């Protein structure tokens, strides 16, 4: 059983991913913006973080850059999420060392693949 952090301003998306994780025997922690997410990354020490790109104020790419810039979180396993995944998003994700980018709404099989990649 592992802990997964979900950073998304949309409560539905947090619950959706949380539900799938729970069914697979994991626990989920939610955060509704980048700063709350980074704080929980430090306090909760999740095995994986799911990070939404499209958030008001600070978007997911910027949040991920900040995570990488902080020595305490630089190595965190992060997978991005967005509504429309294209090559541009995937290459940006790879550049920032993300495990990939999930298409929203998140589906069980796709999430399971990410969990495998994260070694969970």
């Amino acid at each position, binding site marked *: 059983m592992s802990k997964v952090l979900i950073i998304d301003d*949309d409560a*539905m998306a947090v619950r959706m991913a949380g539900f799938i994780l729970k069914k697979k025997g994991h626990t989920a922690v939610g955060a509704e913006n980048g700063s709350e997410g980074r704080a929980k990354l430090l306090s909760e020490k999740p095995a994986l973080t799911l990070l939404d790109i499209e958030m008001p104020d600070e978007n997911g790419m910027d949040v991920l850059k900040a995570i990488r810039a902080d020595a305490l979180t630089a190595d965190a396993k992060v997978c991005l999420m967005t509504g429309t995944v294209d090559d541009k998003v995937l290459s940006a994700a790879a550049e920032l060392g993300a495990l990939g980018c999930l298409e929203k*709404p998140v*589906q069980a099989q796709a999430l399971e693949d990410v969990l495998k990649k994260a070694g969970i």
Partner: protein
Amino acid sequence: MKDYLIAVADDDKGNLKVAKRILSIYGYRVDCLSSGEELLEYVKGIKPDLILLDVHMTGIDGFDTIHKLKADPSARNIPVIFLTADDDAETETKALSAGAADFVGKPFVASVLLLRVKNTIELNKLQTDLKKEAKKLSADFLEEHRRNERLSMQVVKALAGAVDAKDNYTNGHSTRVAEYSREIARSAGFSEKDQDKIYMMGLLHDVGKIGMPDSVMNKPTKLTPEEYELIKSHPAVGCDILKNITEMPDLAVAAKWHHERYDGTGYPDGLKGEEIPKEVRIISVADAYDAMSSRRSYHDVFAQEYIKSELINGKGTQFDPVYADIMLEMIDEDTEYSMREDPDAYMVGDDGVAVEQTNRNDDNDFVFGFLSMLEAGGLDTAVGMKYCMNDTEFYAEMLTEFTRGSDDRIRHLEECLACGNIEQYRTHIHSLKSSSKTVGAMDISEQARVLEEAAKAGDGRAVIDGTPAVVADLRAIVGSILMAMSIYGLTD
């Protein structure tokens, strides 16, 4: 100012020259024409912002010219100022009634000519803008009206779905009765508005069944006299439910009297012949037809020949003969026997694979009814269930979350529009795209996708024009979801 084009028609070359000089100095573009005929030919290709027209010309004069201009729809709106040396009221009256906008006396005084030209062009522009605005307003009004109608229809259909879901044997009954009734009304020559009214009445005629116990409704064996009396109260219950819809009082009428018989032996009031409203007489025929062409707990689908003989026997006793005859004609035209309950029509699919609801137990019935009602409200529940891993409880949770968040979503979108923050708007509409897809609100998700594209492209106009529709649809679908959830007791 220099964008404005003025056409001057005068057979006096000297006047043309003076007019052109004065107007050009002030930045107008000027085309000179030496007769009425030339002007009429000219406006076929070019639409100037203003015409200066001499009254007295050789060939056709100014009055004939303006009459011809005003008769041409493409040139009618170009304002015309008359040029005249006459100084009498008769010429002025004649010109104004022919549609002239103003006069300028000859010989020209530069300041007067320029002021009149400027005023006329501005006034005309103002009028054109006003017309456009009025047109847009009436289009907005129509759109709003159309949306309201769609909302009423969705709510009525959701309610009809709830009625049908209560009875194992009446899936789709209300919709079919509504459709058959509309068809009878159409053949009988009712107006389209009345046909629509009858359709709504048909959809809700059985709404009183909501108040009947399930054990009686779905009893496979014969009802006891007490149970039968109870079932006979559904018209009164239906009338009670619908009588508060004062905007459509006929809804309650159909619910109350659809078990009356033409010969006066029906219930609850024993109305006879034309005492029964004609809309209700139509629905009674359609209702009886559907009962015979569908499965019931006590019979299977009857053959067309049998149904026809029953309708013929019932003419003048159970049914109004006129409408029974129309139904008989409809049966004759239906050579494939397609007017009957379609057992495949009420399935809930997953991943495109249809799942037949055969071995229903109470739980399945509950889920099935709930999903049918959501479907009637416009959701693609197969998609929603797929995202929720076929877990109805979780689907209900996501629906709750979706309805709870909808006010905030709408507020965010409207705030972004109000302060012109398209980038932030894009984030919020993006989120609506995903979340509506999660619950199976595919239509809204698609609209959100289009708006997201528009926002990405910086097309503020498309965003502003498209947002009210998605907001209205979101409100409508949230209304349907809340209704389904409250009827099935799934609200907190």
